[in-house]
């Protein structure tokens, strides 16, 4: 053990000096969920299959709502979304001091008038 210890001492620390150095990320890291609301058709499939119940979809008001502090970033919704508008970003959400941190992505007004 002594050898090991001395080796550590000589080799210098293995520490990543986060936050002064960037954090480790890989291309497949699951950081947080984002939506490209333009394509969303508010079908609610993502809501149905979210194991954490983190999504609310309101078809009438055309809102898609994510409780980011409830989403477990499993990516299940991504695989169920018919329009592929959901995706997972590699950066993770920063900690926050507010308890009910809820992101509401506002409705995209209809551009096409129905006849």
């Amino acid at each position: 053990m002594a050898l090991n210890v001395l080796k550590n001492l000589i080799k210098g620390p293995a520490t990543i000096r986060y936050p002064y150095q960037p954090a480790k990320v890989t291309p497949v890291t699951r950081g947080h969920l984002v939506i490209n609301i333009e394509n969303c058709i508010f079908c609610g499939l993502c809501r149905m299959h979210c194991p954490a119940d983190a999504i609310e979809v309101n078809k009438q008001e055309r809102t898609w709502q994510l409780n980011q502090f409830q989403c477990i970033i499993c990516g299940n919704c991504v695989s169920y979304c018919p329009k592929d508008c959901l995706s997972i970003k590699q950066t993770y959400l920063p900690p926050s001091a507010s308890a009910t941190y809820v992101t509401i992505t506002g409705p995209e007004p209809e551009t096409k008038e129905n006849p």
Partner: protein
Amino acid sequence: MSKKIIVPFGPQHPVLPEPIHLDLVLEDERVIEAIPSIGYVHRGLEKLVEKRDYKDYVFISERICGICSFIHGATYCQAVEQVMGVEIPRRAEFLRAIWSEYSRMHSHLLWLGCFADSMGYENLFMDCWKVREKILDVLERTTGGRVIQGVNRVGGVSRDMDKEELNRIKSEIPGLRADYVELTRIFDEDLTVQSRTKGIGMLPKDTAWELGAVGPTIRGSGHAVDARMTGYGAYDELDFKPVVRTEGDCHARCMVRTGELFTSLDLIENAIDRIPEGDIIVPVKGNPSGEYYAQTEQPRGEVIHYVKANGKKNLLRHRVRTPTLANVPALVQMLAGCELADVPVIVLTIDPCIGCMER
């Protein structure tokens, strides 16, 4: 007047990574009686199976435990697949085996670290966890999650490893092996570690069997009980020999785990050599009906996932018999008559996974 010391040990206690409680009755520092009490992590997640789609439930089953998370997910999928009669692609089974073995290594390294820490060997704890980060790097690189991988799906896995990745993994193995040799040497030969582990927490061969211990706990007492020997998934094709020690003390259980680090590396190498090309997932249609007891080997021992379904998209019952629960009777047995200083050491040698024990 009795000369007793009655001490509550846990639920919040720095040597316990997870809450469990023991009423310790001591005389000087000798443990006269140790009665465990659990339930501090009982969430009742099995009940969620009645609410969630059986496919989405995979993510919950993964969160039974954050350490052997992968194997929980895989075993659940395996159980559902058996009920539904789904034959999943061979490549998926190999991938599951590779990730399982990585989980096992990460779990064992984590355990070795906590074990060292329970004896007050902080440096060794740090070393073990340093090596463990290398395993986590591989897991994150291949699945996207450090501790919760989230790649299991009913019908296969959701992520593949390409040729390049497999080669990279393989090329990293010799380095890991060297690290393991170093760690094993310390756990095996260091005098203070020996004085804290040899002859401590004896679990004789017969008792271990009688009490239904599983995993390294029973393998340290001389029984070759390892669910991988049943050849589930890809294990039927991999060369596998369980690590068994006969001493039945804390040191033996520790050495079983260090031995299994090498076995896991061998299995991974083996799997990479033999992994077939092909799909990684098959579409699963319909709802399950029937029941199945899926049995796999977690780092802590054999786990049983039981599913029962009646043709609805929600299962009727999901029940997990985790290795820790099976090892609790053995723990009670081992604690009687030990020293207070040995309590954390002995508690840790069953590698208690309270999270999965209580679901």
